[in-house]
């Protein structure tokens, strides 16, 4: 058991994906001026969402839509609602964060990191483990609900006076990555394998290479964050950044078991629950909870939890899921 974890972790740590993330991390900690143009980074993330959404849709059209999709989606929404409350509790115990800061951080852990999800799928793939194609739809579904919980946690009693008018909720639920992920998923569902054949050599073959470059950029950004705001990370916070994903993954595991997901699907739901947002939620928090200090949630999510999931979390979740699955 343990050695499988270690074996997987080792194999994982020596994959190009992780090594390029580490390269980025090291480069920016050494203050190299290496950087990926913002437009290129955004283009890569669009490519990844496009590819993963589309492939998910195709695989569903392959195996046909079943009740599993709806059930898992609902379960994902619930996880996204509940996990912030758990995180908030842990933060109150483990750290001295103000309520607003704690609520903002908690929101990030209810939501998801799509890159972590993508990395997990590519590990499953290289292990030849199948998974429910609709997990990408679940990923999209889990992005936003956590924001409601965060705002509720922050403003219990008094109601926030600003920012959360109609426009705000449209921004949240129609944010670019949700729309692109769901849209590509639906298009994949409609066009099916025939459509995939047309664009396969664009979205399948180069996928891993693009992911390497994207993780290089993630490493650069995470390193920059640690360099400029690392001092914010009191031990309690760092510990939270490692414990919370484990707690989240357990929630994900239990739900997956109840839903009877495949080992691959279970592992992905665990990864989603364990991962923390650094795109949708920070933007929402800046609008609705400007008093919360962005350095705290960004550094924690990008500098601690993301690397943890990428290196140790993913192989760990995989082992748990397969150990139970088989």
């Amino acid at each position, binding site marked *: 058991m343990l050695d499988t974890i270690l074996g997987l972790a080792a194999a994982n740590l020596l994959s190009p994906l992780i090594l390029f993330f580490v390269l980025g991390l090291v480069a920016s900690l050494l203050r190299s001026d290496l950087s990926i143009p913002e437009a290129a*980074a955004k283009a890569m993330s669009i490519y990844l969402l496009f590819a993963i959404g589309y492939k998910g849709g195709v695989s569903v059209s392959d195996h046909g839509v079943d009740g599993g999709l709806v059930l898992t989606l609902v379960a994902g929404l619930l996880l996204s609602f509940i996990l912030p409350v758990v995180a908030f509790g842990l933060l109150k115990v483990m750290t001295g964060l103000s309520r607003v800061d704690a609520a903002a951080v908690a929101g990030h852990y209810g939501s998801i990191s799509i890159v972590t999800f993508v990395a997990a799928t590519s590990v499953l793939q290289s292990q030849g483990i199948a998974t429910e194609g609709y997990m990408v739809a679940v990923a999209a579904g889990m992005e936003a609900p956590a924001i409601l919980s965060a705002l509720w946690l922050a403003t219990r009693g008094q109601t926030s006076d*600003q920012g959360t008018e109609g426009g705000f909720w449209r921004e949240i639920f129609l944010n670019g990555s949700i729309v692109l992920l769901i849209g590509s998923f639906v298009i994949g569902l409609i066009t099916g394998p025939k459509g995939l054949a047309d664009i396969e050599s664009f979205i399948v073959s180069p996928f891993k290479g693009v992911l390497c470059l994207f993780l290089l950029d993630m490493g*650069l*950004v995470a390193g920059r964050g640690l360099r400029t705001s690392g001092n914010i990370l009191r031990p309690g916070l760092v510990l939270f950044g490692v414990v919370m994903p484990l707690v989240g993954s357990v929630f994900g595991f239990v739900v997956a078991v109840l839903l009877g997901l495949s080992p691959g699907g279970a592992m992905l739901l665990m990864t989603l629950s364990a991962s923390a947002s650094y*795109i949708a939620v*920070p933007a929402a928090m800046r609008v609705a909870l400007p*008093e919360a*200090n962005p*350095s705290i949630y960004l550094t924690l999510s990008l500098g601690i939890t993301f690397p943890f999931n990428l290196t140790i979390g993913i192989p760990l979740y995989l082992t748990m899921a397969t150990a139970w699955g088989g």
Partner: protein
Amino acid sequence: MIETSDAKRVEIIIESPMEQRLTDALNAAGVTGYTVLPVLGGSGRSGRWSREGQVSRAGGMVAVICIIREELLEDLLDAAFKVVKRHIGVVSVTDCQILRIERF
């Protein structure tokens, strides 16, 4: 010679996620136009940041420039202040002369 008229140039540096709200407020305050400039990075009480360090829309800022007739200044500042008051950012006003006042 071309005649110029006195006006005010208001420059508001604000977080990107607030841009839409700010420009809506400016329109509501009756400004006839504004221009949004990109920002590469900066530093302030909330620390140093740079465009390339952003994965998230949250981090970036923009500079909104609004040239207005002097009499509009107060309404504009009220409107702008409502939007920025809880947020980081900077508002500055400069005297200027403009051509084609009839357009403002």
